[in-house]
């Protein structure tokens, strides 16, 4: 795998169970694989659309502007977090154990939300509170970045330890209670925008657009992909690999801070239990790669997978199906997707 990754790999966790990307790839254009990839990508889009059609037919209110807006709004927090995670995955390589992953994101959101709510409750203005919440996110991101690039801890472990510390700090700050908060910004965020769609929905779309533009359409973004997928080649080409990896963690920390503010507006305060968001967000971000052309993590793919999960939950609710099935469906989806990509890659390597 990443033989000379910017951080030390313990043993060879890097070794995937099957396939060996280090082996030279055959040069002839793999039409079969392209067709299969197209089938997978088209297949996942088809499943997405199929689910939407199914819900529109069976649940009368599903296909209304109001409902779709609601789903977008409810997905905003998870979406921003998943996008942050996607940036780390792009910059660190897609091997989840040795590559980029940020387990501290959900805890980060919790602490940033707590900081914001506490400051607002203490009578501080929006400006101070926003700066503090985003600053909290940035600091957490910077600690992750330092742990990964300077101390050389594997991201999975570094962010796991940071997650514990951050979750503890949130408990210290809030004493494990709900901190209600109201401010002008919060009122503006939780209001309805044009077309009766929640402002949060617009925030999610705008945020995605901004990050997608930066990651998918700028030289900076291209270099981030290069650093993640081929660190040696990137280094040989003169890219500051460590700086990019560090930057991806700081960006993801900032996303945690933003998600924190959004969650305060969505829940009218900071609540406990932010850590429960972690695994769903990880799954969402990893699932996003099926919605991309080359089956790599992309920002738009992550948005689609966030919305997919959001629509599933919403549709289940409208149909009165137990929403407990959602986690099962998510699990099955990720297994299906990953099996399909693994089998594709294996074919390619033969």
């Amino acid at each position: 795998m990443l033989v000379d990754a910017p951080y030390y790999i313990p043993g060879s966790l890097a070794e995937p169970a099957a396939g060996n990307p280090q082996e030279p790839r055959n040069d002839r254009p793999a039409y079969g694989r392209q067709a299969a990839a197209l089938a997978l990508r088209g297949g996942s889009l088809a499943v997405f659309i199929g689910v939407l059609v199914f819900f529109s037919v069976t649940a009368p209110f599903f296909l209304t502007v109001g409902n779709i807006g609601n789903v977008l709004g409810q997905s905003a927090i998870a979406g921003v977090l998943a996008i942050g995670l996607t940036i780390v995955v792009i910059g660190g390589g897609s091997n989840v154990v040795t590559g980029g992953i940020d387990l501290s994101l959900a805890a980060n959101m919790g602490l940033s939300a707590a900081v914001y709510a506490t400051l607002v409750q203490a009578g501080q203005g929006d400006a101070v509170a926003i700066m503090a919440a985003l600053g909290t996110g940035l600091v957490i991101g910077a600690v992750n970045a330092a742990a990964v690039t300077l101390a050389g801890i594997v991201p999975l472990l570094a962010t796991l330890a940071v997650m514990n510390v951050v979750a503890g700090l949130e408990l210290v700050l809030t004493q494990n209670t709900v901190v209600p908060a109201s401010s002008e910004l919060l009122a503006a965020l939780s209001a309805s925008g044009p077309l009766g769609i929640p402002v949060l929905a617009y925030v999610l779309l705008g945020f995605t657009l901004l990050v997608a533009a930066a990651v998918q359409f700028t030289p900076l973004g291209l270099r981030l992909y290069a650093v993640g997928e081929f660190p040696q080649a990137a280094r040989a080409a003169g890219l500051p690999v460590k700086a990019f990896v560090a930057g991806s963690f700081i960006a993801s920390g900032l996303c945690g801070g933003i998600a924190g503010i959004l969650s305060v507006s969505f829940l009218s305060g900071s609540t406990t239990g932010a850590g429960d968001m972690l695994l769903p967000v990880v799954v969402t971000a990893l699932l996003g790669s099926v919605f991309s052309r080359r089956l790599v993590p992309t920002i738009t793919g992550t948005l689609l997978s966030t919305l997919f999960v959001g629509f599933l939950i919403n549709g289940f609710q409208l149909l009165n199906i137990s929403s407990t099935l959602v986690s099962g469906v998510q699990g099955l989806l990720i297994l299906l997707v990953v099996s399909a990509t693994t089998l594709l890659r294996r074919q390619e390597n033969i």
Partner: protein
Amino acid sequence: MPARQLSVSIPTVTRSIGRHALIAALAAVFVLFAWLAPAFLSGANLLSVLVNNFALLAIVATAMTFAVSAGGIDLSVGTAIDFASFAFVSLVLAGQPIPLAALGGLAGGVVVGLFNAVLIAGIGISPFLATLGTLFVGRSVQQLLTNGGNPVYLPPTGVPDAFRFLGHGTIVGIPVPLLVAALVIAGAWLGLSRSRFGRVVLATGIQASVVRYSGIALRRYTAATYILVSGIAAVVGLILTSTVTVYIPSSGNAFLLNAIGATFIGTTLSPHGRPNIPGTVLGVLLLSIVANGLLLSGLNFYWQQVGTGLLIFSVLAIGFANRKAAART
């Protein structure tokens, strides 16, 4: 080499500190808590640390060590614990004899391992993603089985004493959970570092392709590894259920992060940064002592998590920085 001996002596010193960061940390927290909280050193307290904090986590972390040794990870150990617990409780409620119910519980946990084995060794999904998927599917299955996540209680009366034996019993004065943990640790140590199976597992973790090219049935070993992991985790499910006489859906996940933490803290003990059973056990011991000591020292409960996190973070940082330095020379 002898000529360079002098010039590398300082890095060597810092490296040996790094190597022993875990033992130093253990000694430090032990002394610190003995000084902060006099009750810490009492025999009753130390025994309670071992039985209440150490035993169960040690078994889960031992299981995790196998997965990490093979170059993977198992995020579904909690699912195996839950499935074992559910099968055990259901069989007892159905009136089956305890030994049979316990066997059924173990089988319930192993089902999770079989599922993982198919995904990882059969299809070839990376262990992280495969077991993450298992975790989600397992959570959903449990909620379906329990009407949306209701705990399954055993009636307070009518539960045979044999049921409580695993959690509350003693053999020659030693609590059964501790005894089981010691057996599992000893067995795992023998299995991992003294058997052919263990050698193949360790080799898989270092360079899987070499194992494959050596003509070893890699897939079979990988499958066996994940089945073994869930089997060991299932033991925790039995003890846990026997202790609290209730099955709570998805409660096993509480062990997950600490087990991963302990396993990787343990890798700092090995000069090559490899997972190893003694290291894992010391890692669990460190976590248990810190949890208990912080409680006794009367520190605000919420600061305890911060303290534990910072401690794990520093042990990892020292261990990894040291390994990086070693790799450079």
